[in-house]
């Protein structure tokens, strides 16, 4: 156990790396309209497919002569908006429903658990793909679809933790002394849940970036000319041979964003020493 301290320190490093990466990207996203050198959807047919560093457009121009740098910056905006929307919904609904299932009547628990089992029976993005398909292409459909699928993870975490906390003496004592379900939930269960939920949420951040851009890559997400990273990537496939930077750059941005989330989640996990509890 000599490495316990070491692990703790390593967690700090990982956490800061991830936070720095995500923070930078989020900052760029927030100030994109101020930083971006050009309008991301302004077409300029006389300036098509200029490679990076060869003109005033620092990262070159795309197949319609639009500034790639500006598109990437505004793309970050789209990605972070989607992540924020999905994360806030799934954390809230998943945790609350999970607490409810862990504490409430058995039939509620049974029904909700069966339902989430049903959702989890679809591998990865496939259910989200179908839901987004039914809602029709568009960023909002992707957000809705991912909300509909991703809350399950928070539900499972909250449910299992609530159920095990219930057995603890002090919760039992609170129940015996006549505290109401809500009081127990807010007073005793939620505070204990928070660290794990926070870790899962940071880990989910990267996964959500990946899911949004995957669905956009398949054409279901942001509709052109919106500069969504995944959509940019799929548009640039045609120009792979003549302008490889067009597919390289948005993919690299996605990679960085996911990496940031992943590192942050891992660091937090280590710092809070939750890794061995097996809930995540």
């Amino acid at each position: 156990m000599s490495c316990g301290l070491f692990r703790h320190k390593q967690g700090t490093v990982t956490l800061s790396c991830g936070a720095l990466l995500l923070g930078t990207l989020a900052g760029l996203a927030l100030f994109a309209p101020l930083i971006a050198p050009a309008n991301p959807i302004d077409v300029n047919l006389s300036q098509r497919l200029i490679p990076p560093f060869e003109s005033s457009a620092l990262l070159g121009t795309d197949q319609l002569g639009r500034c790639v740098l500006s598109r990437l910056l505004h793309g970050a905006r789209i990605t972070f908006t989607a992540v924020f929307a999905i994360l806030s919904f799934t954390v809230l609904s998943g945790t609350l429903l999970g607490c409810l299932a862990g504490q409430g009547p058995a039939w509620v628990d049974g029904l909700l658990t069966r339902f989430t089992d049903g959702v989890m029976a679809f591998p990865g993005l496939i259910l989200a793909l179908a839901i987004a398909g039914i809602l029709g292409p568009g960023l909002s459909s992707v957000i809705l679809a991912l909300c509909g699928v991703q809350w399950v993870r928070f539900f499972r975490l909250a449910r299992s933790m609530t159920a095990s906390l219930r057995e603890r003496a002090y919760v039992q004592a609170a129940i015996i002394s006549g505290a109401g379900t809500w009081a127990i939930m807010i007073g005793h269960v939620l505070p204990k849940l928070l660290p794990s939920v926070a870790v899962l949420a940071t880990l989910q951040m990267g996964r959500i970036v990946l899911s949004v851009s995957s669905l956009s890559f398949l054409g279901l997400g942001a509709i052109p000319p919106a500069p969504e990273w995944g959509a940019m990537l799929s548009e640039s496939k045609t120009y792979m041979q003549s302008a490889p930077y067009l597919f390289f750059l948005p993919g690299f941005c996605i990679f960085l964003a996911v990496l940031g989330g992943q590192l942050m989640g891992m660091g937090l996990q280590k710092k809070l020493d939750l890794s061995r509890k097996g809930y995540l």
Partner: protein
Amino acid sequence: MNACVRRLGTAFQTLALVLALVLSLGLALVRGQTAQAAMTPVIIGEDVDIAGFDPALNESPWAFRPLVYNTLVELDLDFKVTPSLATHWEASLDGRTWTFFLRPDVVFHDGSPLTAEVVKMNFERLREGAQKSWLSGIEEISVPDEATVVFRMNAPTFIFDSHLTPPFLSIVGPAALDDEGKVVAAIGTGPFTVESWQKGRECVLKANPSYWGGKPRTDQVIFRIIRDPDARVMAFESGDVNLVSLRGALTAVQRLEKNEAFTILKRTGQTSENIYLNTRRPLLSDARVRRALAKALDLETMIPELLGETAEPGRTFFASGFGAYVSPTPYMPRFDLDQAKRLLAEAGWKVGPRGVLEKDGSPMKLSLTVVANNAENMLLAAAIQHALKAVGCEVVLNPVESAAITEQFRNGDYDLLMLGQWLIPHNEPFTHYRFGYYHDNSTYKVSTSPEITALIDELESTADRERRLELHHAIQDGLGQVMPAWVLFHRNNVIAVSRDFADFTVSVGTWQLYRDLAKP
């Protein structure tokens, strides 16, 4: 425990053995490929697979059908009507009776003879089924003798021979049909027989030694289905296929032209890519608005810049492949942004907040339906979206797939809709107005008016060629006033062939694309 080590050791040995085996097998396969390359079949990279063996299926691509089947009459490379299964034919003066005389001694792939009865059976099947509207002019088919087929028409028809040229009117052998009258086998009279078909992957054709036009010099033709245009070109560059259409491949022509190993063949086609405007929608009901917005499109710059060699910017109503039938008066107005703005202001549209035009409180916001999985269309749509923004028209893209887009087109469920013009090979564009878009009884009814319908009806009952030309031009000019569609570009047929096929003159022109493969 030692036994365990030994077992593990054996496992590793087995693994190594398997690896070696796989490696050598792979090498052998690669070798096998190169060895085969000496007696190359013609491998064609196609985007769409045949939907079945029935030549009448509209979902099937054109290229396959003329290689396996024949029609009574066909078009040559200059779009002239030439004999095929019928050696000659005649029409009565009133245009109500057409008599076709069949080529003697033609046999189907299964050896059964081509008779007038078989032809009659084919046409009865077609006009009951998939080609009901195309053949609606036929009243009765009769067979006076073994080698003569007579069509009685319900109205005077003067280009019925041209109407019989599309490959969906191909003749199949009686044995191709099952009990329900469905075509279940590929039994035609064409230069190739179907050897095998793996749906969605490839279709292998073999030369038909008893073809009435002589045994083709190509022993084997393979259609390999690769949906994505870029993927198709990559497969071509890597030698996977040796003949490929460059349709939709946006960057390929320039690159392939530089390569000594490939030949690029280019010909003007017969089809155009249009944006259809829904004249029934309030925002687009005013012809001045439709014309003004067209003036905002700088096609002369946009098309060569974005699509290069594969397209000519849209000027006239039809592609130059239709020759004299194309009206010399330009259909698309010249690009003029100021005039476009002025026209819109005259029509009552004022610049509102965020620069979007407004009239009676409603903003000029249109949706543009476009095929999602088509890089060419998506690119063009984004450019047009930007061009229309300059005059204050906001366009939202609505990407859908090809089957859904025709459905929406038919139901009039769109504002703007980008789609290739109906491509039914024909020597004159008559069918576009009558069956396609602009007649009261057309399939899609993009825009109809009593005047245009009257002109089309007159065209249908006119035999004199000079008068027909006049009418064609009048219809196109009349449509120019209405502006029911914007002609974005005329598609060139561009084909890349590997140099091994240097002695091949692959004909480039609509559906006869690969006809020369059949030459003896």
